């Protein structure tokens, strides 16, 4: 098996930037798809609380990617899926 590449800058930036946008996207999906939808009173606090665990889990584990390039591609792909879902929610659930 290939040696894992260090790629500090590209892996860390993938975790910080794409991890954060992924966390916002998934928290947003939760806000739309959990009971009551986006405007349910009092739900926004829990939605905000979801960001930190998702973001930091991604950031912590992204050093497992074998290279920084793979980290950006994989996380970028998952981001695209999350934001496609968010866009669909906006379009169909409004």
């Amino acid at each position: 098996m290939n040696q894992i590449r260090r790629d500090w800058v590209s892996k860390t930036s993938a975790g910080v930037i794409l991890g954060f946008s992924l966390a916002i996207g998934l928290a947003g999906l939760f806000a739309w798809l959990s009971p009551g939808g986006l405007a349910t009173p009092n739900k926004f606090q829990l939605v905000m609380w979801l960001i930190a665990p998702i973001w930091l889990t991604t950031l912590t584990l992204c050093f497992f990617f074998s290279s920084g390039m793979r980290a950006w591609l994989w996380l970028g792909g998952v981001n695209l899926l999350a934001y496609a879902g968010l866009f669909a929610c906006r379009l169909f659930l409004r």
Partner: protein
Amino acid sequence: MRSDVVRLYKVVHTWTGITAGMFLFIAFYAGSITVFAEPLARWVSSPAPVRLTALAQSDELIARTLAARPDAAKEFTLYLTDTEDVWTRLTWRKGKDDKTPWSAELSPAGEVRLAQSYRSSLADFVDNIHRTAGIPGANDIGETIMGVVSAVYAVALVSGLIIVLPSLVKDLFALRVGANLKRMWLDAHNVVGVVSLPFHIVIALSAVVFSLHDQLYDALDYVVYDGRLKSVMAASNPFNSIKKDERPAPMLPVNTLLERVKAASPSFVPVEMRYRNAGLRGASVQVWGHDTRYMTRGKGFAVISPVTGEIANTDYLPGREGTWTGVVATFFALHFATFGGDAVRVCYFLLGVAGAFLFYSGNLLWIESRRRTERRNGGPVIQKTSTRLMSAATVGVCLGAICAISITIVAAKWLNGRVANIDVWHNGVYYAVFVASVLWSFLRGAAAASVELLWLAAIAAAAIPFTTLFSWTSPALGMQGSASMAALGVDLVALSAALCFVWMARSAAHRVEYGPADSVWSASHRQLQEDAR
């Protein structure tokens, strides 16, 4: 786990740990004390100069105060307890940051007495140190930095776990005390880290949220809520549950309102009532209190109409919250130790101190890994500049914060009522001691400074119970120590801390004189002898 992955995570752990370690040490040490903020507030309080109005006279007090000062009707607070940190029965202030609130009491003759006084809280000061790690400047700067530090801390936690995972079963409960000191410190660091990992994960994640929630809400508003988050928040605001109505209306007695709240939640213990728009039909009262049966966000509250007596909102009443606020209340409780009563608070205090140890030992391991060892029959060694500086910084910052907090606590009691603006003094004393300790550590070197600052820490901690002793034996000092169990608990904890510091100072002194000379922890004259040999 592949060994190259473990090696990579070792680097992650080293650099996240070393950048966040000292900030976290201060935050954890001050946070442990903040768990017992209320006993600390009671310890530092002098009995109120005016006797508190009897609770039974609350209605009369409210009516007479509002007659004398109609401007108080907009918002005032009635305190329901009689502990020594409660300084008045009724108070109101102009805005949130007003440090000189008004207070009202009834004289024995039934006359209302109004006073305005400077209020400040030592417990809040220690809490600020906890939230900002003592980073000077506006609070939000320190909090934002600590939010980032907490995120780095979360990465340090998980990377640390990944490193120990392969040898977890073998190494976890092996504390190899012996000649290999580095091994022993590493074992201790690992066992404390793994055993308290759930606590640390909870604290790291919640600290990120507490410090960065404004920024997180802004991002959510922009991306998800499309700018509508403000209106969602307003719709959720419990204070908006009573409609504005400016027609005058009589208010129900305090006791009736408390009975209604009791009926809604029998185990809820009210401690204060915050009135808004008193005397109008749209008036509201937030009844704040504790409920040890539930996981709460510190204090919980119910909103009740003082005109109709109807409970208007229970979103924040322990046990009566809805799903959404209930879940979030659990997260708050897990950070603030506001569940399970004193037993859980004691555990959190110990976990917090253990956390401080974790960061301190982490720095020691960083230094020890970079140590230059003396070769047999080889020449003397000079330690790297980086380890000498890091050891001085670790000693100065960690012990400096410990000394500074103790001395600030003692000074607060001695200065209480003697100085005009005690906040300036809290800050002045804390930063003077902290900065002096750090400078001292760099000046004297880590070895000598560790012993000296530990003695200072011992003396400063011992000064807390001695202050209480003085206040009892010399009433002329006018300090009037409290004799409640809560306040005595502060003295007792401080005394045991002082004894711990004495023990640590003595063993540090032993290491300086008799430990290996090829170390940043040995006396400089011994290092020089080595050079001369």
